[in-house]
């Protein structure tokens, strides 16, 4: 136990870094993911094609490869920024296609009849989208997006393996110094992760119940 208490500042700093990774990559992925989703449902063919290729490639590349690319290949190619920023770029890029898919399936998940009805009472494109489709799509999209963020929380741990001192990285450091209390250290780190993931999971459950569309 004393290994945890005496290293608590290290863990808390790591926890802060993990939360920062989650925040920055989460916001970045939301922005890029929404843009990509917009491209994918747009009537412009080349954007649609680009968005499809972008989604398929990033979704099928293991996160370890994405972060390896950011941590080793980018500096090798002459990019000079610190590992935290590189990890943010990698996590954003990796998470954005999942957000894009969540948004897209939300929009596609609104029954066609809704849009047909809106069109048939004379609403224009903007009104159809803004007043009828989007309000329903957003409700359906929030729970899957929170799930993507939960996955992102867990995925930030991989950044710890690529020179970022997040929770996982600081756990490795502490383990090197206190090899006698490995078990307690790992459980403590797991609890830190659970604090975030379980909280987000609860929020998702509450939101899902609250915004559920009755059909």
């Amino acid at each position, binding site marked *: 136990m004393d290994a945890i208490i005496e290293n608590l500042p290290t863990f808390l700093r790591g926890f802060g870094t993990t939360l920062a990774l989650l925040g920055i990559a989460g916001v970045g992925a939301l922005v890029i993911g929404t843009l990509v989703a917009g491209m994918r*449902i747009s009537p412009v063919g080349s954007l649609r094609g680009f968005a499809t290729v972008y989604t398929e*490639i990033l979704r*099928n590349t293991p*996160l*370890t490869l994405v972060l390896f690319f950011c941590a080793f290949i980018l500096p090798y190619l002459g990019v000079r920024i610190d590992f935290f920023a590189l990890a943010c770029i990698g996590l954003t890029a990796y998470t954005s296609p999942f957000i894009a898919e969540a948004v897209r399936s939300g929009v596609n998940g609104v029954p066609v009849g809704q849009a047909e009805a809106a069109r048939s009472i004379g609403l224009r494109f903007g009104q*159809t989208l803004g007043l009828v489709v989007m309000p329903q799509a957003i409700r359906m999209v929030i729970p899957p997006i929170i799930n993507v963020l939960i996955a992102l929380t867990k995925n930030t741990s991989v950044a710890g393996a690529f020179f970022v001192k997040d929770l996982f990285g600081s756990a490795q450091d502490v383990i090197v110094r206190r090899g006698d209390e*490995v078990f307690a250290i790992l459980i403590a780190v797991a609890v830190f992760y659970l604090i975030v993931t379980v909280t987000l999971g609860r929020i998702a459950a509450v939101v899902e119940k609250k915004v559920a569309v009755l059909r």
Partner: protein
Amino acid sequence: MTQVLYDAPGPRARRRSLIASIVGGVVIAAILVALVAALAAPRITAAGAELPGMFDPSRWDIFLDRAVWRRIGIGTLNTLQMAAVAAVGAVAIGVLISFLRTARAAWIRYPMVLVLEFLRGMPVLLMMLFVLLIFSTGSYWAGVIALAVYNGAIIGEALRAGIQSLPRGQREAGLAIGLGPIRTRMSIEFPQAFRQMLPIIIAQLVVLLKDTSLAYVISYPELLRTTTYQMANYYGSRYLFSLFFVAFAIYLTMNLLLSWLARIIARRVDAGRLPKGSTPFSRRAEKHAARRRSDVENVVLDGGGGAAR
């Protein structure tokens, strides 16, 4: 969906979106060309020496050597072996968990809820480190066990949801013809739940294959470590980019193939779910609902983590 949102485009709107498409295509192509050109350009080091560009033959010549491909093949097989063993383990653990989670005895059921929450809320990487350090299993078994337990927890929850979504009559019918509760579960409920949840299980196995690359961190010689660490050390770091590129291409091919397979199976299972002789309207509604379900599930499960609820 998108076609319903606006009137069918007339000649002018079609022309406009064609122009937008061409402009967009040119911009994207220009960015790609710029990227490739930047990669191909020779770079000058701080010491003033000139290094060849990334597409220079001197960075790719090792791939003419058969021994290089053999080592890459070994790395790929290591990855596939870990994925295969972990996948079998994950399905087995998933079946076990689904039974424990739906057990009639509360003292089995409730602790399982906590255990599952714990297993699903923590990073796989942390679990690998845990198994590696606490049980001293070596990196191969650490990777296999962590992947099997983590994905087993998710598959178990999927199977449980499948069992609970069955009509009550299925179980009652099983009990009524004299099968015991366990026989009913095994031969009536479980096969149906498994079939219904097959798309989710396969989607989760795609995630598992992707996640084997995490074993890189605990020094298992899978594809990424074989190429970018062992081989880059052996042949020299000027091959780092090309070796990474090859590993990336192999991973991408494997995952795309498996995702494609998953999609085909999902479509088959969905098609099997359609009620026979339904009116066109209800069939369409059913199809739509099925597609939406699998779409949402794909997103939830593909995130590399799954739901923590």
